[in-house]
């Protein structure tokens, strides 16, 4: 846990540094409009997967549609366990998100630099297994029930608040965004509210906050 925090902290600092540098260095290069794609991979969560039970790999492809609107497709895979409060569960599966974002503020010299807000609809089809769901009792008489592995699906919407900045004069960008999420619907096994949903995270409450720290390449 501690190594994971340190790792996260390191990325936070790196992000600050790069944003700071961007303000000082005016861009000289000019960009012409053309059909474009940007492909990114979430480096922070992929890295954090080494230190955590949560293995989260995600990436995105975005494309500028018109002046300020970009379409975005995100896909990923998550494997996670939930061992808390007498639960013992695991879930793994792919997820897919479709959406668009609007550039709120952008660099005059590079329209791909800037801050944006947006929204996405997301879905995950995954396998879960609940090895233990607690039965609450008294006097130390807790017990649990196990449920076999099953396939489930969940649907949620998520907001997107983030920024994108070019790394010096290269085609590489850093794209950082926050993802407030709301779980709209989920299939359930024996009426049991899933405790973890791949791509969504902990799902015992309908709200969750995710984040991505992407390194992206613009084609």
């Amino acid at each position: 846990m501690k190594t994971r925090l340190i790792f996260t902290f390191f990325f936070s600092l790196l992000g600050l540094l790069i944003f700071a540098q961007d303000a000082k260095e005016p861009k000289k290069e000019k960009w012409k409009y053309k059909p474009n794609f940007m492909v990114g991979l979430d480096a922070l969560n992929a890295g954090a997967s080494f230190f955590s039970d949560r293995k989260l790999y995600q990436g995105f492809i975005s494309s500028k549609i018109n002046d300020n609107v970009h379409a975005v497709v995100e896909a990923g895979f998550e494997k996670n366990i939930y061992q808390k409060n007498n639960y013992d569960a695991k879930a793994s599966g792919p997820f897919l998100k479709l959406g668009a974002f609007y550039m709120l503020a952008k660099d005059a010299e590079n329209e791909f630099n800037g801050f944006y807000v947006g929204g996405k609809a997301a879905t995950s089809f995954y396998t879960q297994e609940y090895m233990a769901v607690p039965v609450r009792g008294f006097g130390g008489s807790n017990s649990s029930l196990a449920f076999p592995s099953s396939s489930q699906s969940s649907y949620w919407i998520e907001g997107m608040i983030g920024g994108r900045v070019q790394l010096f004069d290269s085609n590489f960008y850093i794209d950082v965004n926050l993802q407030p999420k709301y779980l709209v619907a989920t299939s359930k096994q024996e009426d049991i509210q899933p405790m973890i949903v791949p791509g969504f995270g902990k799902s015992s409450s309908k709200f969750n906050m995710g984040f991505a720290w992407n390194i992206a390449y613009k084609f």
Partner: protein
Amino acid sequence: MLGTLFSCGGDDDICESGEGTPRMKVAFRSFQTGKTITLDSLYVAVDYGSGKVQLGKLQKIDSRLIPLRVDDSPYTDVYIRLSDKGAESKIRVNYTTKSTYVSPGCGIKKYYENLTSALTTPNPVQKLEEGQNQIENEDKTNLYLLF
């Protein structure tokens, strides 16, 4: 960056009282007259599978809620005393259980059905009378102890 601040989880371990497994309600009657009586003191112990657990003394009561086992055992042994060092009655409560999922915090709740009780040590409890033979909530008396 800020995401790390928000990434801590929600309150998924809080189970509001009243949503857990219901307890068995016992009330007391006089062996001679059959009338409801109030006990000056009552000590209860329950074997949850690893020996007797003392649930302590309650005074001036006309009923008491006793939690039963939530594991797969088909019975719970309940021990009743009127005073700390006094004689102890053993009651075996047999039942079948049903499980229902409640919430993330509470997990699964058990209901008890087909309650039948047997008094194996008839002192100080003289006799048992069955009440409501299923436990779905804690409102109705499930078992009467006759002293």
